């Protein structure tokens, strides 16, 4: 069986500007932040991002990496809730927005995973989702009668086909089998099934034997045919939470505060973003000690 281990920079080397990239997790929960940081260090640009958004999308916007975003929401999940860089990208018109209902995003990933052109869903009807999509979103009329004999017209959620998926799980083996140890799988399996290339960071990469011994079989969300690259990234979801640690609320607030002036953001970038992942983690440890 293949050893799929690689480095964060190896992943970035396989990505191209202009790609459509799906990012797993939810809001400020179990986001593949080490991979997001690796993209920030690269010259990748013009990305289309598909996400249940949090600081992943915010940080990518901070560096001008995003051209277009497909999302149901962007939230930090705790006070002050609104991501500052996503807000700036939107209010300056820097990104094309394909905002949608949360359930539509799931339907779009399911369609892509099943190689279907679309899936019907009620969500979206009557709302401004269609305005956001500027003609890109259509409806479909059911060929079957509704209970009253008439035909239902539904939102035809198009497949969200991804060039690449980035996800972070808690425990993996070198082949790409992986488990979450938290309470919610989110949609990481769907992201992987909707993508051409699938990259998994994990808190720990262990033997298959240890993996299956450590978790219940139901926690094994990904199997190896859903994954192309495996990267061990301890604390790799920081500052969002993962199965074995909480969100770093103090650091998340620091991120929001730092975005308020060009000077403080430059300092944040110098300290945390223009550095390697190891240096980031060391800087985060210093932040925790000083705070």
């Amino acid at each position, binding site marked *: 069986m293949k050893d799929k281990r690689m480095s964060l920079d190896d992943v970035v080397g396989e990505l191209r500007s202009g790609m459509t990239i799906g990012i797993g997790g939810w809001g400020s929960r179990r986001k593949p932040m080490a991979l997001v940081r690796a993209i920030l260090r690269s010259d990748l640009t013009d990305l289309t991002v598909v996400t249940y958004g949090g600081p992943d999308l915010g940080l990518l916007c901070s560096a001008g990496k995003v051209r277009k975003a497909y999302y149901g929401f*962007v939230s930090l999940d705790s006070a002050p809730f609104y991501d500052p860089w996503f807000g700036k990208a939107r209010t300056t018109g820097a990104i094309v927005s394909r905002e949608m209902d*949360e*359930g539509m995003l799931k339907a779009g990933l399911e369609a892509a995973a099943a190689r279907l052109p679309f899936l019907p869903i009620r969500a979206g*009807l009557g*709302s401004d*989702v269609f305005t956001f999509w500027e003609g890109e979103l259509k409806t479909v009329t059911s060929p079957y009668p509704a209970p009253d004999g*008439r035909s239902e017209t539904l939102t035809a959620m198009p497949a969200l086909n991804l060039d690449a998926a980035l996800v972070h799980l808690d425990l993996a083996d070198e082949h790409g089998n992986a488990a979450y140890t938290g*309470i*919610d799988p989110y949609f990481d399996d769907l992201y992987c099934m909707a993508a051409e290339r699938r990259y998994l960071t994990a808190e720990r990469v262990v033997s298959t034997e240890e993996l299956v011994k450590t978790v219940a079989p139901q926690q094994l969300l990904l199997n190896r045919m859903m994954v192309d690259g495996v990267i061990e990234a301890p604390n790799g979801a920081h500052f969002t939470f993962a199965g074995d640690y909480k969100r770093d609320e103090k650091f998340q607030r620091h991120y929001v505060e730092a975005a308020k002036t060009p000077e403080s953001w430059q300092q944040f970038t110098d300290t945390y973003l223009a550095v390697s992942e190891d240096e980031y983690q060391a800087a985060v440890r210093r932040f925790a000690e000083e705070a």
Partner: protein
Amino acid sequence: MTSTETITRAEYCAVACAEIFDGAGEIVASPMTPMATLGARLARLTTEPDLLMSDGEALLFADTPPLGGKSPIEGWIPFHKVFDVLASGRRHVVMGANQIDRFGNQNLSAFGPHQQPTRQMFGLRGAPGNTINHATSYWVAKHNKRVFVDAVDIVCGVGYDKVDPDNPAFRFHKIHRVVTNLGVFDFEGPDHTMRARSLHPGVTPEEVAENTSFEVAGLADAPVTAAPTAEQLRIIREVLDPKKIREREVPTA
């Protein structure tokens, strides 16, 4: 003995939020704010014992803990199952609103133009899917003209004027109640516009009119919101919210 002589506005709001769930039965109650959560839990401890409730993450509470409290669990409801449940209709959500109009259209996404707003909030979230799939209510802690607008900037939650009568896909749409710090409202006014069901004690029809950008039906005839019973007050004060978290949203003047 629980004193019923000094019932606060927040306590009237909690009871009004509980009454949102009258007759709901065995469905998931999804309150998105502390006051709506207090109401849902009060309902579960009084009239609606069969309600299901999550901890806001992915677990279903077996008991009914106080606000911020813990409870044993009875089940698992991660996000993907929430989408399944809401499409099935076995759910009543109580959302907040940055804007709401006379037909019950709601905005929590952004202010201004869709592609370049003047202020970005959360985005559409689950509002389009919630409102088209099952009963939806709103809790607004500060009833004013900035929230109750002539027209919302972005339609997230679907209002009655957006319902296509020729499309049976809209048949599950129901905006049930709006509870605010001033009163209780529904959409049984002319053409499904907002109507006053009751005003809290001390609130005048003029006060509501001055704080709403559109005409509210039934204002002059609206009765006073029913007072909490002694048992409801005891549960609110001693069981569910001894720390008075309710006062943060609706302070006692």
